[in-house]
């Protein structure tokens, strides 16, 4: 299959998304541990409170301190759901950020940087890897580039540079506050950076100070120091940085929006859905959810008491899934959250839950594999594994959420599916979703329903856990229920749960378990199986977190008068063949968009539907797709200039 990739660092040709709207991306970078994330939280909060829609994405290395991390915050006065390829304003208090991201600054953009870095040579930045170094040297046509060289290069692209000596800024502050300690407070560079940016673009100062105080709320002294630094830096920027290319005044707020972090969709979904047991083993990017549940899992209930989710950190993922299943057998809604390597260890026990019809929800925050892969980077490469994990044949649901808002409601649906159909549900999430901070409509807990299916609250007469007949789903007792005794075994069993190797019983039990896959497709509403966001001659099929960049790309094309269809498949297994077929009615050219190398969903699609896939847009660099990448790829397809397989490469 023909394949095209582009790895040149300066291949971006960026246009303003739409002239009439604000579409602005701010980037801050620095060594891990230097407060990049705090700065981004501050910036996101100011922008959200100033009335803008915000989409922030964090990128980081598998490292605790020292390696490069960055946060790009995009904002707009209309709904946005993805990152942009370009950066409008960059803040860098270290040289590496300048070296790594200069080429993404858009024409007419700006950079605020520490002028003390001017003479730093790229070859002296130890964390700048040789592969990127080589590409950068080629781009700059210079084997020994310095920060100054890079800045000269971006000046050719009409980028305005605002040099600020961070050291002098600290000295000024120390003097004006009569506090010599400030002189060495390099730890405040992050807050100074974000404050200079806020001052330059004229975001409201009081929002900045509120946000800074909020981030350091636990330490009063630190909060005071940082608030002073913020005020001082903001004033310096607004007084001395002239001819600013952009201003972002406060605008009217959209009601009922919240600023939410990626993992909170599934975390709060679990609390609302009644998940009361979660076992987990630490792994990026899944652990945030479990840590949140442990810290915030006690909630008031309708009797004025409190209910709480018990979170157990286990010795490994095998134990995590085993404990989850054990807890689920007591009738408690139980879950675990993991990523690819952990899920690999869970495969055997997944089959045990399958053969014993145990309702459990396994939240799978994918990252790039195989093996340890890119442990802190994005990927959608575990779909086929989720569909096929475990030996033997057993029923499961594999379900994927497209964004954070969806993931809240979907988490609740997943628990209902697991209870109603008595099977394990694998809820597909990923690193892109987990490391996103965005504005989205507030979760509405009143929309959550709980359906426990055939869970019993009492037993009369003889009880058989795996009673045959009816729709194949038997009334479910649980450990401790009076007169509800049953047996479970990983062996094939009879209706009571005792081991049998009888061929006839075996055949009946296999059918009993697997027939429910058809039932699921009959009973789950179409809108929960697949969603058509737009119809068109050219139609995208995709799943999971590509939804945001696809929708943003479609809006951009719409502005140019081009309509492209999009069917988002949420139920990946059992595959909703009929539903997808209906939604694709009228589509002539099918384009599969996924963040993996082998077009895994496309393979499921091809297994189930007799419709050819004409194009693939794939990305497996470990970085999420941007809306421009998808827009440009779609335009190439429409213009007949695209290869069958387009590989996306943007992102540091």
């Amino acid at each position, binding site marked *: 299959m023909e394949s095209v990739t582009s790895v040149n660092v300066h291949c971006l040709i960026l246009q303003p998304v739409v002239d009439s709207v604000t579409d602005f991306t701010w980037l801050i970078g620095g060594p891990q541990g230097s407060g990049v994330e705090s700065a981004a939280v501050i910036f996101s909060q100011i922008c959200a*409170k100033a009335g803008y829609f915000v989409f922030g994405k964090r990128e980081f290395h598998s490292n605790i301190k020292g390696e490069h991390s960055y946060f790009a915050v995009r904002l707009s006065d209309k709904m946005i759901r993805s990152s942009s390829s370009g950066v409008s304003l960059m803040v860098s208090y270290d040289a590496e950020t300048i070296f790594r991201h200069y080429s993404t600054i858009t024409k007419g953009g700006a950079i605020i940087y520490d002028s003390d870095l001017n003479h730093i040579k790229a070859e002296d930045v130890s964390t700048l890897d040789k592969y990127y170094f080589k590409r950068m040297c080629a781009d700059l046509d210079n084997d020994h580039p310095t920060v100054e060289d890079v800045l000269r290069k971006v000046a050719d692209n009409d980028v305005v540079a605002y040099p600020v000596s961070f050291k002098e800024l600290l000295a000024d502050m120390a003097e004006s506050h009569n506090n010599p300690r400030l002189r060495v407070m390099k730890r405040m560079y992050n807050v100074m950076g974000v404050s200079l940016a806020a001052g330059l673009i004229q975001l409201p100062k009081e929002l900045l100070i509120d946000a800074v105080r909020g981030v350091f709320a636990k330490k009063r002294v630190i909060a005071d120091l940082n608030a002073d630094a913020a005020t001082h830096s903001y004033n310096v920027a607004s007084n001395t940085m002239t001819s600013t290319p952009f201003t972002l005044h406060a605008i009217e707020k959209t009601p*009922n*929006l*919240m*600023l939410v972090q990626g993992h909170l969709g599934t975390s*709060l979904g679990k*609390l*609302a*859905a*009644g998940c*009361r047991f979660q*076992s987990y083993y630490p792994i990026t990017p899944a652990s945030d959810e479990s840590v949140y549940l442990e810290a*915030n899992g*006690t909630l008031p*209930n*309708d009797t004025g*008491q*409190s*209910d*709480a*989710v*018990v979170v*157990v950190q*286990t*010795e490994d993922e*095998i*134990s*995590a899934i*085993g*404990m*989850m299943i*054990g*807890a689920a*057998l*007591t*009738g*408690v*809604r*139980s879950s675990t959250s993991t990523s690819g390597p952990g899920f690999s260890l869970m495969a055997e*026990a997944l089959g*045990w839950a399958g053969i014993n019809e145990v309702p459990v929800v396994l939240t799978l925050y994918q990252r790039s594999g195989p093996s340890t892969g890119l442990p802190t980077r994005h990927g959608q490469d575990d779909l086929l594994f989720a569909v096929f994990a475990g030996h033997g044949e057993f029923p499961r649901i594999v379900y994927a959420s497209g964004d954070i808002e969806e993931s809240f409601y979907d988490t609740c649906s997943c628990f209902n599916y697991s209870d109603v159909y008595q099977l394990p549900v694998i809820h597909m999430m990923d690193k892109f979703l987990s490391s996103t901070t965005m*504005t989205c409509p507030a*979760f509405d*807990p*009143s929309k*959550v*329903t*709980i*359906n*426990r299916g055939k869970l019993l609250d009492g037993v009369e007469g003889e009880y058989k856990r795996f009673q045959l007949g009816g729709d194949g789903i038997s009334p479910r007792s649980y*450990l*401790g229920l009076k*007169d509800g*005794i*049953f*047996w479970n*075994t*990983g*062996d094939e069993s009879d209706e009571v749960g005792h*081991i049998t190797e009888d061929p006839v019983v075996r055949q009946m039990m296999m059918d009993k378990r697997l027939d429910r896959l058809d039932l699921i497709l009959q009973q789950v509403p179409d809108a929960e199986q697949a969603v058509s966001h737009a119809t068109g001659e050219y139609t995208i099929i995709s799943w999971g977190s590509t939804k945001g960049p696809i929708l943003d790309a479609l809006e951009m094309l719409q502005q140019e008068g081009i309509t492209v269809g999009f069917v988002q498949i949420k139920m990946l297994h059992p595959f909703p063949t009929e539903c997808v077929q209906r939604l694709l009615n009228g589509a002539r050219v099918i384009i599969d968009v996924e963040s993996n190398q082998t077009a895994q969903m496309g393979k499921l699609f091809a297994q189930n539907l007799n419709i050819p896939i004409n194009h693939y847009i794939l990305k497996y660099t470990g970085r999420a797709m941007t809306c421009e990448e998808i827009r440009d790829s779609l335009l190439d397809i429409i213009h007949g200039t695209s290869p069958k397989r387009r590989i996306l490469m943007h992102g540091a």
Partner: protein
Amino acid sequence: MALKVADYKTGVHNDWCPGCGDFGIVNALQMSLAEMGIERDRTAIFSGVGCSGKTVHFVNTYGIHTLHGRVLPFAQGAKVANPDLTVVAVGGDGDGLGIGAGHFVAAGRRDIDFTYIVFDNGVYGLTKGQASPTLKLWEQPKSLPKPNINYNVNPIGLAITSGYTFVARAYSYDIRHLKSMIMQAIAHKGTSFLAVLQPCPTYNDINTRDWYAGLDMEDAVSRHSRIYKLEDTGYDPVVHYASESEMDEKLSQALIRSLDWGDKIPTGIFYKNETISTFSQRIQTNIPNYPENPPSRQSISKDGKPTVDISNIVQSMLIS
């Protein structure tokens, strides 16, 4: 009506080999549950995989036959979610100390209130007699093509150093003593580990019933059973008060006893400590009402709607 031993038996055909030590264990377990009057539907027995894994099918309580090596995670998850259950986990020595050794150590650290019984016969019976983790170096039971070249695990020693708060050994042909050990293990507050020496008549032709009885000893006059009871020697396994020196002393003596083998094999309680907090008490530091309102007692919905209110959390994230 008082429960009888027969009430704890199922009609499931038992396919263990004639003379298997496992029979003694399942009988003693049924007798213990009956004698303690533990309600059948308040009891859950979990097992691993192997001959011992079938145990749950012979006992008329909730019975969960899990995966090879994974009995402890399943059992602990159930007990934490529903602390009202009496939970007993059973499994072979290969299951618990080979494939499941990581879980064995981690369970000791938690000290959840349940009982773990290991059926220790030195071989993997169901797969035709390969060496298990408790088989001694250079021993060669009849199915091994060559002598065993791995050193053995010391189950009692491993349990003691992993934090188990009740550590005991019994012999499957001394049912009275075994029953007493099981009852004390179940009554103990915390994780109880009971290793049961259980001859495999089919594959272990070294540690046989006759061998334990000392019938192989050459000198007929001094010939004696290899098994003796620690309690008959005045041994005191109990940590009487919460001090480091008391604990260290009891741990050390238990560890030394755990090394005994050969002509004198101790059974009985090696170590017992109820002075340290159980897992349930530790959970309470985060969730104060855990004992009254554990996960299993929470009714999560009413008329199809959640009974907890997360609106405060959502409110706190609203952009104001």
